[in-house]
């Protein structure tokens, strides 16, 4: 059986890549994809812990299903915002969307 650590290392790597993407990308769609990566990392963590420690109730699996559902809703919302942004300024570069400041 694959040890728990391996799942955790995978999810950490995935989370870090996603986090790096959020910080470094300028394109709003790419940031959104990075966020999805981070959510996937969280899901792996949930499932891994649940498989190892909570074999009877599988609550981690259920949580993951919820996370995926909510992530889908969130993507729908975020894409809607991004489309409005694109219609407004003909670009999805978030560096240009900086009107809300001092």
């Amino acid at each position, binding site marked *: 059986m694959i040890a728990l650590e391996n799942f955790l290392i995978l999810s950490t790597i995935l989370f870090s890549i996603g986090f790096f993407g*959020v910080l470094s990308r300028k394109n709003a769609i790419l*940031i959104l994809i990075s966020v999805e990566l981070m959510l996937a990392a969280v899901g792996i963590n949930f499932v891994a812990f649940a498989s190892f420690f909570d074999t009877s109730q599988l609550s981690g699996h259920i949580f993951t299903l919820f996370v995926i559902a909510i992530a889908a809703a969130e993507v729908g919302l975020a894409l809607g915002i991004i489309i409005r942004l694109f219609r407004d300024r003909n670009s999805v570069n978030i*560096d240009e969307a*900086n*009107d*809300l*400041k*001092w």
Partner: protein
Amino acid sequence: MSIGMQQSWLLTLIPLTSFLIVSLFGKKLPRQGDWIVVLSGSLCFLITLLIIGDFQSFFHGHGFEPVGNNIYNFDWINIPNYLLIEYSTFVDAITVVMLFVVSLVGLMVIIYSIGYMQGEQRYHWYFSLLAFFLAAMFTLITTGNLLQLYLAWEGVGLGSYLLIGFYWEKQSAAEAAKKAFITTRIGDVGLLIGIIMLWRVAGTFDIQTIIQLAQESTFSDGYLTTAMIFLFFGAVGKSAQFPLHVWLPDAMEGPTPVSALIHAATMVVAGVYLVSRMLPIYTLLPIAQNLILITGLITALLAATMGLLAQDIKKVLAYSTVSQLGYMFVALGVGSLTAAMFHLFTHAFFKALLFLGSGSVIHATHKQDISQLGGLKNKMPITFVTFSIGALSLAGIPPLSGFWSKDEILLYTSEFGAIFYGLLLFAALLTAIYSTRLVILTFFGTPKDQEANDHAHESPKLMSVPLLILAFFATVSGFFIFPFVGNLVGFDSGFSGIVYLDHPHDFHIELSTMLVAISVSLLGVLIGYLYWLNADGRRAENAKEWAPEVRNLLLNNYYFDNFYQAIINKFILGLASIIAWFDDQVVNRSGIDGSAQIINYIGFRLKFLQTGKIPNYVLMMALGIILFSFIMVVNY
């Protein structure tokens, strides 16, 4: 429900209600609502009579045994085990005397005012203030605890302030009102300190309990003396005693009926009332009692000399009031509650009569300066006769009331010490001289101002009837010292058997002191006659050159006002400018503006964190999460 001593709270409620009605709706009411105040004044007088009747039923021969029927109270503020403030009323012999004086003089003044204030502006405001003052005054004399007394004490002070400043368009009236209020406030601070000191040890404000505790020596002597001297300081301020006497002569700026009510018969005797109420404690404290005696003596003498040369008819009366109040304090200082209360009783009638009489003169001639008056005796016969009765009573001519009460004080003082007796006799001589001078310059001789004299006329009935009633009381109230007169009105004994400290004493005529007092009074009247009436007052004119320094000293009231003004200018205003500087620079600029500026600056710097760039926010968020995770790991 019958009305008796337990219902004395009605005396607060009725005038207070009429004050509210008249002050709020007076302008819209017929006659501006003066009849409401007259009605409430009459009701109060009626209730007073009922209370006196109830008092009589508990009065057995010598003494008064109330068994709780004279007390009414409920909890006002109650913090269990810490603080209990009651609303309480307490009626005993002192209260009954005060009630009779206040309600009778109050009613007379209200009726007189209808005539005197006719056609004045703010007519309804004047009457509502009279009602307010009466409510506070009745509360003051019926109260059973010190805190309520303090409340009423400030209430009468406020009423006095508003009525002195009734003609506030006049600069001098506005300033006199301020002076009266602030000067009495100085004394009131002492009163408050005294009350708090007594409460700290006794744990109650109830006067009778405090007296009982003091007699059981719950307080240490030094502490009690200090507290009672502070309390006396309040009385000094209110009763215009030396050195806080300066406000009363200026208070004459108010309408004359107000002077009769507040500054002769009722409010100014509040100090005498307070000390009388506390006299069982003062008699335990020789230092405090001697202080009262000496203060009273100095005041009686100083004020009598100042009254000698005053030119304003009302100021002469004001100085004489200060002087007579000094007499009452002398009586309290020698420990005679009877003499003090008796003089208070008679003085209220004849001094209110004198003030109302002078108001009648002022109403007729529109002049207050006695060097401008004269020759009014045929023009205003009722005023002349009643005013003379008041003046002769003040001078101490038998059988008028002032003679009997002054004689009581002189008698007790002569038992106390020859020097006090001598000085008091001298003050009595001066009193006789200036009251004679006042009558002569106002009513006798040739008119100095013919035009004013031609227009002079007797006052309307509304004014002359109160004069006649008060003249009646100024004549007969002195007889109340005789037991058989007390018997006539339903008491088995005279005044000395009703109002007394430890045990009643029977009135007896001490022929020697009485003869001395009579001769001193007659001598004073004779001097007044010789100097101001005989030979057209040429002697008085010549006397002006006798001692110009003394004359100047008296005309300037011993430079008290200048002295106080200098203290205010140099010391108090100097101190005030330091405080003003501190307030402006430290509190305002540094404290309030400064802290606002610091916040403003911090905000200006920090606002640049708000870049509008999403990666920045995310970074902040991530750093925050890392920080908190770190803290959690460390704490775990």
